[in-house]
């Protein structure tokens, strides 16, 4: 198993001063204080014990209510939801609970760095499926249909997407649902960026007709509520599936951190306005940054979700890695080379716009210098 392609850049950047980092995969906002306060109050009241394997029932109830209110999908808090240490653990546990050795999982790429390793660690085979800039990095049903074999057990996808910022609308997802149905696939849908959807609303895969029964929904609090370090997420699905997840999770993690669970409960109860405020700011930065990239001559497809822009660097004649290294050394701006997210990420770099507006503007100025110098 190779190290993550992100690691190399992390080590380089650590040794330099004055770097503007667009290499991060997390919010630049602190966790809303109401959430911190709820956790602190929990500690003061001595709430420091294990919870049930599936997590605090109150939190599962709040999650069920939230999903019903947003997407009209009904999950039974008693046996269809499990609280995990972030989507990261949810994904790992899901793979181990679901896959038999040699089972294939289709993974559209570019994608989050953990998808393929999680499949492989559980003994599965990840079948990479390239998505293209021309299709706005959306998964194409015909392409999906083509790679399915009789060993294919699941589709693992994440929209809004890290690293491309692509989203899949309801109309885009319906034909995917049809393919999943026809081939009896489990769809593992990582919707951690769901709330970070701009221009329109997010479609939860489980809300499509008939899909709840074959969907494992993964989500968490890291991105929307700026809670990356709290390590809290959840998985929802049909009871047979969740029972398997709870079993693996119970033996390995036992339960999610109780303090983080209290924080998450507060997030759902009262932090919608804070979350909306953050989303508004990401949206403004997105517009400024993407326009800036295109003005510089780094062609960038319009990301409609998450907080990443995925510009093409092909015009510069450099590979993604050369571009990223030289940009770091010559202009002190850190970005992540596209191939960290799958081979088809070559020719692109990932830039996070969860970065203060003045930093983004300075980064654009530096990028512009860099690209101009390359051109002359």
């Amino acid at each position: 198993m190779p190290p993550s392609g992100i690691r190399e850049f992390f080590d380089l950047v650590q040794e330099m001063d004055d770097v503007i980092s667009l290499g991060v995969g997390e919010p630049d906002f602190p966790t809303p204080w109401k959430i911190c306060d709820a956790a602190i109050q929990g500690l003061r009241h001595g709430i420091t014990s294990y919870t049930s394997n599936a997590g605090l029932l109150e939190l599962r109830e709040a999650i069920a209510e939230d999903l019903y209110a947003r997407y009209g999908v009904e999950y039974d808090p008693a046996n269809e939801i499990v609280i995990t240490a972030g989507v990261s653990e949810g994904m790992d546990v899901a793979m181990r609970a679901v896959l038999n050795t040699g089972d294939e999982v289709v993974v559209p790429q570019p994608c989050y760095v953990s998808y393929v390793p999680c499949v492989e660690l559980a003994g599965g085979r990840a079948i990479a499926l390239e998505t293209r800039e021309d299709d706005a990095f959306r998964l194409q049903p015909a392409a999906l249909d083509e790679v399915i074999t009789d060993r294919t057990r699941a589709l693992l996808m994440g929209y809004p997407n890290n690293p491309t910022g692509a989203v899949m609308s309801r109309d885009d997802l319906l034909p995917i649902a049809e393919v999943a149905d026809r081939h009896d696939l489990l769809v593992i849908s990582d919707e951690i960026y769901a709330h970070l959807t701009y221009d329109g609303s997010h479609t939860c895969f489980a809300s499509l007709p008939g899909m709840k029964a074959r969907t494992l929904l993964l989500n968490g609090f890291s991105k929307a509520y700026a809670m990356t370090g709290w390590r809290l997420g959840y998985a929802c699905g049909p009871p047979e599936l969740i029972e398997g997840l709870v079993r693996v999770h119970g033996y390995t993690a036992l339960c999610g951190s109780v303090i983080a669970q209290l924080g998450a409960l507060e997030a759902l109860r009262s932090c919608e306005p804070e979350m909306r405020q953050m989303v508004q700011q990401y949206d403004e930065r997105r517009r400024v940054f993407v326009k800036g990239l295109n003005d510089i001559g780094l062609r960038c497809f319009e990301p409609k979700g998450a907080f990443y822009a995925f510009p093409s660097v092909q015009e510069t004649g450099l590979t993604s890695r050369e571009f990223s290294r030289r940009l770091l050394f010559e202009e002190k701006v850190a970005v992540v080379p596209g191939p960290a997210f799958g081979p088809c990420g070559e020719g692109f770099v990932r830039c996070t716009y969860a970065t203060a507006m003045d930093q983004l503007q300075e980064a654009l100025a530096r990028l512009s210098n860099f690209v101009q110098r390359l051109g002359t």
Partner: protein
Amino acid sequence: MHRLLEILEHEGPVPAEDLATRLGCSVEAVEASLQQAREQGLLLRYSALISWDKADKPHVFAFIEVEATPEHGTGFDHVADYIGRFDEVHSVYLMSGRADLTVVVQGEDFREIARFVAEKLAPAPGVKATATSFVLKTYKMEGELLTEEPGNKRLAVSP
């Protein structure tokens, strides 16, 4: 419009082109909104937020609760307007609760403020009584937390 005003409130003047890009609307629409905000007295002025505690220029704030006599038909409007005209007065609010008005006064030192209260505010027409509290330290103002240590808490690169 509200978001536009929020941006200006936090960041001061921002070029109309930048506002248009950020909000996803035309430059003309932004300019029209700005003009309207000025005309309607929504947008009063641009100013900076200064943490005077850190400057070596002496600077003192006091919050003064004022009990006043209301007038028929206009309530406390006249007395508030009268008080507000002194340069020393930073802001004036009509309050619910015990006092009628809260007046924020700024000065170079405690003596200056004490003199202002004794000689100008307390004798002002309509003022019945005052209770002055001096600000000793500012922890947060205008939404800006002053206790936060600056610096980046994130890793430079993460998945």
